[in-house]
């Protein structure tokens, strides 16, 4: 037993304060929006220039010029706004985005994040990842605890190219919830049916 992708997203939704501005990264983080209660008043920001992003449009209503940063067609909610990229990154870099939920390839115990390049692999580019990891007030990472080959992704230090240094506050994986601190990972919670020994065994860094 462990959390599946949807359960990781469901757990992450509990991290979003009411009345906050939230940016969800591409992939697994995108699922988090589905697990907020209908009366939740968080506002979703998308770095391509959209605040107040709504769900995918109804079939037939899609507009190719209304997309999220993953280039998927989306909607804008009443009260939402569109703006240029300089304004959008002022929101991010200026600390106006409260929470960013991002994917990761590696996270170090002190909160270094690597999520944009694999050594020797093909370069996908940086996009908004470095600005989000540097500028948002709280960074939550969603990832599987290990690679498909079983290698830990939570490490004493990252060996992939970094996205940002000391940026990550909390990591939510299939095995549980851990905080990054200067001394090491702090185990906050184990996933359903997962014991502490398993989390410790599958984590590459220090677990306090």
């Amino acid at each position, binding site marked *: 037993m462990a959390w599946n992708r949807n359960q990781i997203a469901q757990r992450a939704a509990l991290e979003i304060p009411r009345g906050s501005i939230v940016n969800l990264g591409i992939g697994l983080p995108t699922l988090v929006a589905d697990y907020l209660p209908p009366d939740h008043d968080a506002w979703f920001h998308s770095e391509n220039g959209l605040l107040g992003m709504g769900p995918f449009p109804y079939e037939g209503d899609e507009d190719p010029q209304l997309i999220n940063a993953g280039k998927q*067609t989306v909607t804008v909610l009443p009260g939402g706004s569109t703006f240029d990229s300089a304004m959008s990154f002022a929101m991010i870099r200026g600390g106006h985005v409260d929470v960013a939920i991002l994917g990761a390839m590696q996270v170090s115990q002190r909160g270094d994040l690597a999520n944009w390049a694999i050594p020797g692999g093909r370069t996908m580019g*940086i996009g908004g990842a470095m600005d989000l990891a540097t500028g948002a007030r709280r960074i939550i990472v969603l990832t599987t605890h290990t690679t498909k080959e079983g290698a830990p992704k939570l490490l004493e230090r990252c060996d992939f190219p970094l996205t940002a240094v000391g940026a990550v506050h909390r990591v939510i994986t299939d095995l549980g919830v851990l905080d990054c601190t200067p001394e090491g990972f702090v185990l906050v919670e184990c996933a359903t049916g997962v014991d502490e020994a398993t989390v410790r065994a599958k984590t590459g860094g220090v677990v306090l």
Partner: protein
Amino acid sequence: MTAHHAIVGRHHDKVKQDVGAALDGLFDGARIMIGGFGLCGNAEALIDGVLQSGARELTLISNNSGNLGKGLATWLRAGIVKKVICTYIGNNEDLHTLMAAGSVEVEVTPQGTFVERIRAAGAGIPAFYTPTGVGTVVADGKEVRTFHGREFVLEEALTADFALIRAHKADPFGNLRFWRTARNFSPLMATAATTTIAEVDQLVGHGDIDPDDVHLPGIFVHRVLEVTDHEDPFEYRTVRPRPTAEEG
């Protein structure tokens, strides 16, 4: 004595009738900024016009440089691009192929830094310090300085010879309004290029855009081309089922 009306400024007679006139003066080796987030908000007719013009050795400054063989990917396929300055490559197979072959130089920049470099150029600022990229390869070889106990990296402004942007509406002076998330980098690129060319869905008259509703003042736009027909391709068409009457 020269009559005053014989002196023509940069903002005279901006509305162009065809792509050729809009792209007049394009040259080999030009640095060109192109608005758009992927294929969203592309100046499609101008992008095709550059391809048809025969201009080569271009430096392409854009967030993505096309995708799915469309947009700027057509320039990559035609071999007219010498260098790409972008933020994200993703699954742009044309760019991956050229990078692997070493035939195009690629500079990848964080997106917020990319747009701020462009904004700075247009605002007369040669360089600025940003926290983004400190401690990463992005800061390699650049000055890092501490302000208020935090490290910042020095990034330089980014200029261009031409900016090709897409807008929803323009008046004859080039005051622009954009549509939804098609705005993205275009208003900033317009400020940073020597010559900015706006491809617009609709040309309206002077005064038809309320001054309070202008997104980009015409001072930053040098040529306007009305193009009523656009493909506007979807990169990822994501939808949800429409609720049935029973579900309300």
